[in-house]
């Protein structure tokens, strides 16, 4: 075996050992100073903008204000997932991602279902049961 081959073998074995060690450590990468700072700065921006909009009175259209605020929140949640929780499709052979996708599906069903059903329940109440119509407050 030539010295170059031996070196290559050693290097390969070392790399494999490192990868193995990493996997058994906790299955997640720990990020770097750079990735944490990127996440932090993005989060600060994505928090400051909606607070500034709402504290400044918001846009003329309330719907537009709400849409911008919710949009920023969704982006910020993604930023936290990627830069702070180090989500990727590789960790634990993709099972963390599968669990996350399953949770998001259930979450959307629970939230959208509750709001949809209860909104229609409220609007379809019989008039005598409608507190708003009786002036008892909503």
């Amino acid at each position, binding site marked *: 075996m030539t010295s170059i081959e031996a070196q290559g073998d050693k290097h390969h074995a070392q790399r494999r050992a490192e990868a193995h060690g990493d996997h058994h450590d906790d299955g997640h990468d720990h990020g770097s100073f750079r990735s944490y700072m990127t996440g*932090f700065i993005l989060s600060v921006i994505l928090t400051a903008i909606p607070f500034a909009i709402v504290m400044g009175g918001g846009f003329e259209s309330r719907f537009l204000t709400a849409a911008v605020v919710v949009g920023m929140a969704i982006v910020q949640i993604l930023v936290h997932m990627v830069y*702070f929780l180090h989500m990727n499709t590789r960790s634990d052979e993709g099972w963390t991602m599968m669990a996350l996708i399953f949770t998001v599906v259930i979450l959307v069903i629970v939230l959208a279902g509750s709001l949809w059903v209860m909104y229609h329940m409220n609007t379809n109440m019989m008039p005598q049961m409608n507190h708003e119509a009786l002036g008892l407050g909503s």
Partner: protein
Amino acid sequence: MSTVTQQAPGDFWEVEPHHHHEGASTSIGFWVYLMSDCLMFAILFATFGVLGASYAAGPGPKDLFDLELVALNTAFLLLSSITYGFAMLAMVKNNKNGTLGWLAVTLVFGLAFLGVELYEFNHLIHLGAGPQRSAFLSSFFALVGTHGLHVAFGCLWLVTLMIQVSQRGLIPANRRRLSCLSMFWHFLDVIWIGVFTFVYLLGMI
């Protein structure tokens, strides 16, 4: 070539049972716990979404909330997230004192968050806007209170780990525990994004 023929059966079934390190599946297990916790918060958010406009002729968000206080709290929690990140980076570098230092800073921010939240709750209850006042306030206290309770237990866990690390050092078990708390802590910050957006900001529009 011989190595290939030896390994081939392993592609289809385990020739030998393969052994995992102790705690190798902890992170996926803890992640599943966090996801179930997330579902619990989803239900509290859904409850707030349904009941959040039922004021029972009582005070609404615009009469009660102070956005400057919420912004301060958000800053505390975001700063605690990044300082916990620095604690994890110090842990990877085997820097025990650095880890303990950053954990202490994280604890200070966590406690500051709890302090402001308790001040807010106390203020609301003194105004007569306690959880029994209206459906809006019941669901508000349930949602924000559950998040606050999580942060309180996170702080307790943080103190426990600081004692563990200072006594035993950065042993593999403590590294695993610190990784779990890291996930828990960042997860709470994610939930807080939902709280300040859907409860406070949308309530004030």
